């Protein structure tokens, strides 16, 4: 009994003491059994910047339906596509200009851009607070600044005045900011692109061999030129375009269709004409191996939709298709037309015209009962639908998907046409005509000045050249999402789009109600949409 007493009194006292004194802290100090941001140390900046590319690829506001809605479906040459019942609200919201303040697509578009902005702010802040000034870190800062400018440029085009968030959000309430005027947003874009052009490398090889498609100085200069084009600051557009051209990093692809080729193991991506692409990769057998799926919805959402057609035509969701207006207005003798528009019920033209040697099922009705629901499809994306790639990744029949297709965001042809437009507007007709000819000659298949199709357009007067350049942008960039903002920029939106329901206030989309609600009213609706 005595011994028992001693043992157990001892136990009572010793065991807890042992725990609290020696083992307790260790027992309670637990960190996750996977890496957190803290564990990445100096890699955190690189990791955060890489996440900006991830956001660009993976989030709807950049590479899926919302982007397509805002950029392409809104214009007169593209329409929602798909079939009659799928996404009918998009007809209302984006084709007939009855903008809504609360729907999935517009909400996502807004949210995702601010996600990119906040992530970029975090990257810049982490570089500043750790005083990182080595070359690689500064390059990271340049990339973050580029993404910041890219997101804000999209926002200012879409909404006009938007809140300016130029600091990291440490407390969620910090994110509640009133709108800043568009001019202030443009100033901020300029300051970011200033940094980006300073730190970004000339070629992706400066990052190492394994970074094709990563941001370069050329991308920053091209984006900057675009922003000045929207502000009609022609001199700066000319200077920036010339800087891109004189860097000798880019050239027009000899064959127009090749721009959109997507072959096995990335062949055809990040080609000579590409200044910046959203990169995606879908590995072998990715259909059942999520570990090698790093795809995007960009290609999937624009491939042919099966509806009542045989299952092998289950290629995607079938959004963003050409309108009758585009098909009728575009002269047939422009070879780009057959490389941009894919016709239901017809041979796809084979490799010479960006096809794969298949014949499409016929268009039946808008429901697609027994066949396809659209007469025309976006062939620029179809070109990327390489059957070899489908078999390689396993996305066939019921698993239709085309996640491997890169989004060509900035291409050299745009730099050439921006230069042409800015030159013409500043009275340099010769430069304008010369640059326009570069694009037209390539469009013809490089037949040279004596060709009869897509013929040379000599400069006559500024107005004639302006019309020619506008037309050239329409054909060259058809279905690529340039036209709506071009029409607004040119002041042509009313004449071209009013038959669809466009009015002047439609140049800006209303700010999503959710963001206004969440700000507690600090953020105010665009006055034209109150």
């Amino acid at each position, binding site marked *: *009994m005595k011994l028992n*007493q001693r043992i157990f009194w001892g136990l009572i006292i010793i065991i807890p003491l042992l725990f609290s004194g020696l083992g307790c802290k260790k027992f309670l100090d637990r960190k996750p059994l996977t890496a957190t941001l*803290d564990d990445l140390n100096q890699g955190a900046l690189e990791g*955060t910047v890489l996440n900006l590319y991830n956001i660009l690829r993976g989030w709807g506001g950049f590479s899926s339906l919302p982007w397509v809605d805002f950029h392409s479906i809104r214009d007169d040459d593209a329409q929602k596509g798909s079939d009659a019942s799928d996404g009918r609200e998009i007809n209302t919201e984006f084709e007939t200009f009855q903008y809504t303040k609360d729907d999935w697509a517009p909400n996502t578009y807004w949210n995702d851009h601010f996600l990119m902005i906040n992530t970029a702010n975090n990257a810049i802040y982490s570089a500043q607070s750790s005083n990182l000034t080595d070359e690689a870190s500064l390059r990271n800062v340049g990339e973050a600044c580029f993404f910041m400018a890219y997101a804000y440029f999209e926002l200012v085009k879409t909404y006009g005045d938007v809140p300016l968030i130029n600091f990291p959000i440490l407390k*969620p309430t910090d994110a509640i900011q009133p709108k800043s005027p568009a001019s202030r947003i443009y100033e901020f874009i300029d300051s970011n692109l200033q940094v980006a052009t300073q730190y970004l490398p000339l070629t992706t090889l400066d990052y190492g061999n394994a970074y094709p498609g990563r941001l370069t100085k050329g991308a920053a200069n091209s984006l900057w030129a675009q922003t000045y084009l929207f502000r009609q600051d022609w001199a700066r557009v000319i200077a920036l375009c010339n800087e891109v051209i004189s860097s000798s990093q880019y050239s027009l692809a000899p064959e127009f269709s090749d721009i959109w080729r997507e072959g096995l193991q990335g062949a055809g991506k990040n080609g000579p004409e590409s200044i910046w692409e959203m990169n995606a990769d879908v590995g072998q057998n990715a259909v*059942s191996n999520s570990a090698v799926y790093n795809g995007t919805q960009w290609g999937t959402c624009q491939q042919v939709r099966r509806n009542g057609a045989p299952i092998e035509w289950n290629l995607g969701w079938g959004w963003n298709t050409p309108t009758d207006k585009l098909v009728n207005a575009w002269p047939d003798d422009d070879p780009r037309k057959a490389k941009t528009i894919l016709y239901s019920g017809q041979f796809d033209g084979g490799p010479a015209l960006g096809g794969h040697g298949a014949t499409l099922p016929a268009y039946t009705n808008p429901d697609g009962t027994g066949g396809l629901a659209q007469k025309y499809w976006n062939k620029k994306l179809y070109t990327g639908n390489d059957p070899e790639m489908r078999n390689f990744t396993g996305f066939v029949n019921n698993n239709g998907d085309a996640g491997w297709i890169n989004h060509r965001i900035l291409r050299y042809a745009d730099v050439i046409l921006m230069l042409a437009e800015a030159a013409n507007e500043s009275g340099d007709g010769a430069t304008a005509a010369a640059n326009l000819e570069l694009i037209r000659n390539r469009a013809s298949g490089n037949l040279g000045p004596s060709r009869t199709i897509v013929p040379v357009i000599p400069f006559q007067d500024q107005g004639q050249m302006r019309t020619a350049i506008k037309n050239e942008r329409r054909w060259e960039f058809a279905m690529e999402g340039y036209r709506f903002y071009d029409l607004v920029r040119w002041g042509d939106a009313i004449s071209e789009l009013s038959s669809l329901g466009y009015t002047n206030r439609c140049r800006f989309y209303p700010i999503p109600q959710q963001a206004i609600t969440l700000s507690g009213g600090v953020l105010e609706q665009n006055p034209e949409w109150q």
Partner: protein
Amino acid sequence: MKCFQTAAPKPSQSKVLLVMKLTMLMMLFFTLNVAANGFGQDRISMRVKKTEISGVLRSIEEQTNYRFLYNNDLEDIHEKVSLNVKDAGISDVMNLLLGRTNLLYQLMNDNLIVIKEDPNAPVEVVVRGKVTGEGGTPLLGASVQVKGTTTGTSTNVEGNFSLTVADANVTLVISSVGYDVQEVALAGKTEVNVSLVLSTKVMDQVVVIGYGTASKRDLTGSIVKVSGKEVADKPNTNPISSLQGKVAGLSVVNNGTPGAQPDIRIRGTVSIGQVHPLYVVDGIFNDNIDYLNPNDIESIEILKDPSSLAIFGVKGATGVIAITTKRAKAGQVTVNLNTSYGFKKLVDKIKMANADEFKILFDEERINNGFTDPYDYSGLDANTDWIDAVTQTGNFSANNLSVSGSSERNRFNFGLGYTFDEGIIRHEKLERLTVSLGDELKINKFIKLGINLNASRQDNPYDAIGISSGFNVLDAARKVIPLISPGTKNFYVKNPYGTDSLNMDIYSALDVGLQAAGVINPLVKLENEWDKTVNREYRTVGNVYVEVNFLKYFTFRPTWYADVSNLNKRVYTPLYYSYDPRTLVPSLESQKTSVVEDDKTWRKFQQDYILTFKRNFGDHGVTATAGFTTFYFGNFNRTGRSSQAGGPTALPIPDDERFWYITNGFQDPSATSANSDQSEYSTVSYLARALYNYKNKYFLNASFRDDASSRLPEVNRHQQFWAIGAAWDISKEDFMQSQQIFDFLKLKGSVGVLGNQTASRLDGTPLNYPFYPNLNTGSNAVFGTNVYTAADPEYIPNPDLKWETVEAWEVGVELNAFQNRLHFEANYYNRTTNDLMTYVDRSALGLKNKLVNGGSLRNWGEEFSATWRQDFDRDLRLDIAGNITFMDNEVLSLSEDIPTGVLSRGFFNNASAESRTVPGMPIGSFFGYVVEGIYQSYAEILASPIASSIGAYAPGDFKFKDINGPDGKGPDGKITTDDETFIGNPTPDFMYGVSLSLTYKGFNLSVDGNGVYGNEIFRTWGSLESPFQRVNYSGDKINRWHGPGTSNWVPIVSQEHRFNYNGSTYNIEDGSYFRIRNIQLGYNFDRNLVSKWKIRDLRLFVNVQNAKTWKNNYGYTAEYGGDATAFGYDNAGGAIPMTTTFGLNVTF
């Protein structure tokens, strides 16, 4: 203690002796003070041990001038005593020496002291005896008291006691917690064996209180005990399901999936995070009790109030359900066989459009949307009730065998169970095998060693509700249009696994033009895949303890617990065809076979070191507990997948269970991958509790716990929780003795601070490292074909994170009246949760989510429960029980980090189905527009407030009510988002349960019912399905608006009219219901009759569960659970079957 004297102890007189010691001590101090005035001058100092009094007297004679005169035949003069005095007067010494004897002394002249026997001394008697309880179990610690005195003792481990009483004619009062008090008149006997009878009075129950047990009488809180018998014979694989309606304050929302956990909340929704209670099974903390066999349960206690819960510290706020599993009873070997069989039927089916109705509605919708050509229905000629097509009559069977026995030193019990539980969805089946083992070995009088083990093997049902696959069969079924055939057609097709061709029965695909996205024929998937899953769970939960009794009043009990469990799930995807209903061309649904293997392992370790002191000091009763405990939880999950597309050179993975592993020899090496997730957390805690009573009349309970948890940053790691409770048993007061109504009347109250370690995402998924956000997996940057991991934290961490606390108090009354026929209990409770741990979603600002502390929430209500027992005669007895809980919930404030003060959870179409948590309103209140009617015409639209800011609208669309403008000052003549308002509360105003039991001879009929009142349900189906999907119309759509005056409630059928896809009162339904939960008729055979077959007890019964429900909503049921901030949504699931079972219970 300067002076310490003990008489040679007789066995088991310790209690009296201790009392004596104290008395002596007091006497001594007193006499020392007066010693100078006493007689005699000689001071005495001496120290003797176990010496006869006569010997001591001799020593005194040697030391002093005193002389003693006595008769050496006196028995008591040879008593042995121990004495230790210093400088004491003679009278003190004499008192010490003779105090325990029947001897008197007288100091004569000349220092002569005469010692003689006291002629008036009562004859002291030593009474010995044994106290046993139910089944002859020796009762430890039973109190044995001489009536009307403070003299008493308590029984030892063997139930034995020995007490010296003044004479052999006193009456002993014997009591033990959980038993009726018994009085025994000695009437000259010195040997009494008392067998106590288990108390049937609620206030005398022994209840589990966490780290110990106590009599309900001694407690100041609210604990409800439910006997294991209540759950054993009910057809539920999850025992908690059977508690519905039984306990005031306990809300149970059931669902129909075999084995699935119900949504359980005790006294309301106390958090934005975790709301389910803590389960404590024989001491071990757990999140669920899915592994327990209902037949192994001895009792279930529901702990609700602060004074019961504070001892659970950081896990106590959501309430505790404590489960005690069965232990062997003392006595003979018992073999019990329990078996039941029954079937389940779908009741209250939801109504969907049939083929004709679908065509009417769809054709009309096309016209509404501007289509001029009629839809081509060729090939679509079926009229299928898809809900019938996917449901079955399920079988249920539960079989249990238990063996228990005990001997002097050992108690042993063993249980074996097999349960077979089919759901109402085809092929939905759960099988469970359970083994339980318990043994307690008495090493000696002081030390006991015990072990308990519960192990189970469970084959989980096919995931028919889409927990992991997203494939919810019932939901998929009601979406399919009735024009699709549910049958198969025979086709001659290529064997997908071989090179030959063969005939196959193939199910129909859907009409791809109509139902392509998000809708599938559930039969195609179900019939081809249900038997391709192996989902087996092994759980082993057990503990080992040592119980040491020492220093008479102390018990030290260290216990080591473990729950080491594993789930292995392998899902094989086969190759199968479906055919196009229009072209009758079969095609493979997928070209690929694959295997996904999930291995989940979790480990929980807990150790408790509990020291208990229990003693009565006269009128004072004290039970004090102190302890130290640690808890560890770790889960380690791995998922691997492999697939094979087949092809010219490769074979698909065969449809053979042999090969359903990641590496199966057929897999494509490039399509094999693995990933894992794992996390741990731990807590270290100190606890203390005191239960005190004075004369069993006034009670005081106090408890304290300090918790430190690995989930918090070091600065905030420790947190303290406490509670104090008091109670007054008025019926013990003198002034109550004359009345005849109340047998027992107790007032009680308690107050305390509880904790909730509710670090979780908004949907309730726990976060084990809230301070360290995970990096999102799959966030990769791609450059060409090179892939780099990006750093993308899941949310913004909060360096000041701390636990939620709940300030709780309650007051209540408990009473028994009318000869204990009525038991009544009423409580008022109030619980305020502070520092709500909130996962804030800020995606609309492009922000990561953030975990913040802030805001508070209040739950309050009243609980009433009553039972009435009426014995009409020996054969006929009636028991009636009822309970009702009125509950209120209000959000008092929310974190400042939520600028609008709104925590919104939205589902379906841009979050149209919205729950808002906002100050001043109940948690998770439904939010949306108020439907005033339907716009009948353009004229009506023109005459009404303009609503275009919400979207385009036309006749046939909802007419929303103008409630508010941007200034918040009432109607502004415009319908805008400002007109959204609170349209429903998912928390009932009150919930109630009734039960009735009638016993006549061997027959017993019991009927249980339960219901809730005053809550709302948000129905999402039949109105808010994705407009991207074509789904079958709900039955009520036949009454839609289709022209002026046709309907003022059901809008025009059109997916294009997005205006009607706003959440509104159209979706809100009354959630009140009443259900006959159980009807049971049983018959117990006469013992005399069955004893001929060597059977002790034989019972037959039939039970009907969910016999009938009265409800007011369209769904399968009125019960819809959810998480803390979003619950009460009817997503076309939750069907609860009616189950009829027949059972047999035999005891040998």
